[in-house]
């Protein structure tokens, strides 16, 4: 009798624990922005930095919300030409261009000195198909520029903590 009672209690508790750890249905479970929109940058030559977003499946960035800046300001960043995005019809804003998948933007820096370091900043804003949008987000990476004539440096990925400041 006692054992049976205990097993019943345990069973009931088991059900309870299961209920507690099961995520509430209908709540969406989106990726953290640093996983949805992975930002990185590398130098191609002393005056060119390649900025890259790897956008997770089901997520997109808005073209007109994408802005780059480079420090020091003396680097003289030339306003980059952003690739054409995919048109998305928006009933309030009209046609909006969005990016999915990989996005590569070359940043031209006529004012840099070979061998110096620059900080590349990307401000972006995106949404997920599951029906949420992220606030505009700023990410920064430090990119060492090569001395004249050397090979491109490996990709420098944005440190995670930058997303959570």
């Amino acid at each position, binding site marked *: *009798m006692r054992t*049976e*009672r205990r097993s*019943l*209690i345990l*069973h*009931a*508790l088991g*059900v*309870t624990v299961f*209920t*507690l750890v099961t995520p509430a249905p*209908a*709540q*969406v479970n*989106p990726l*953290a*922005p640093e996983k949805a929109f992975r930002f990185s940058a590398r130098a191609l030559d002393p005056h060119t930095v390649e900025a890259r977003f790897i956008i997770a499946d089901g997520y997109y960035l*808005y073209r007109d*919300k994408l802005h780059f800046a480079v420090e020091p300001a003396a680097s003289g960043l030339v306003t980059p030409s952003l690739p054409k995005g995919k048109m998305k019809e*928006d*009933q*309030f*804003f009209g046609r909006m261009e969005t990016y999915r998948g990989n996005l590569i933007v070359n940043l031209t820096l006529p004012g840099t000195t070979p061998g110096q370091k620059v900080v590349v900043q990307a401000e972006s*804003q995106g*949404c997920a198909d*599951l*029906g*949420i*949008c*992220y*606030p505009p987000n700023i990410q920064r990476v430090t990119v060492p520029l090569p001395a004249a004539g050397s090979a491109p440096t490996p990709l420098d990925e944005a440190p995670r903590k930058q997303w959570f400041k």
Partner: protein
Amino acid sequence: MGTAALLALAGGVALAVWDQSPRDAAALLSLSLPDTSGQQQSLAQWRGKVVVVNFWATWCAPCREEMPEFVKIQRELGPKGLQFVGIAIDQAEKVEQFASELDLNYPALIGGYAVVELSKTLGNPLSALPFTVVISRKGTVARTQLGAFDPTKLRSTIDSLL
């Protein structure tokens, strides 16, 4: 034996309820934010009503899509003590334009990113939009929703609080 099982189940239910223990919406209700005309509006003025706070922005398409439903519910249940309050993470002029297009029948307050940060403590760790908080007449958080609120669930939550 049956009693024991019932007791255990009751304990389980109590635990489940405890897990979703009503959180105090005091921080949210103590906010004071400008409306689209620049007038400061304190959320405390709606204390005692069932308050639905919706964080949104005009640049957030999924936010805009669910707002016509909010307008409908506000029209229907406003007289019974329901108050929707929109907090737009946006510029006042864009909010005003969209509000007039939609014939918004509840306040659209303007908040900065610091305000959406507040929603982190209410179950929105990514500060994403839309995020909706249903607050009881007593000022406790009855339900939160990240992403579009299922209209049936929203209505039943509100009905149970009115």
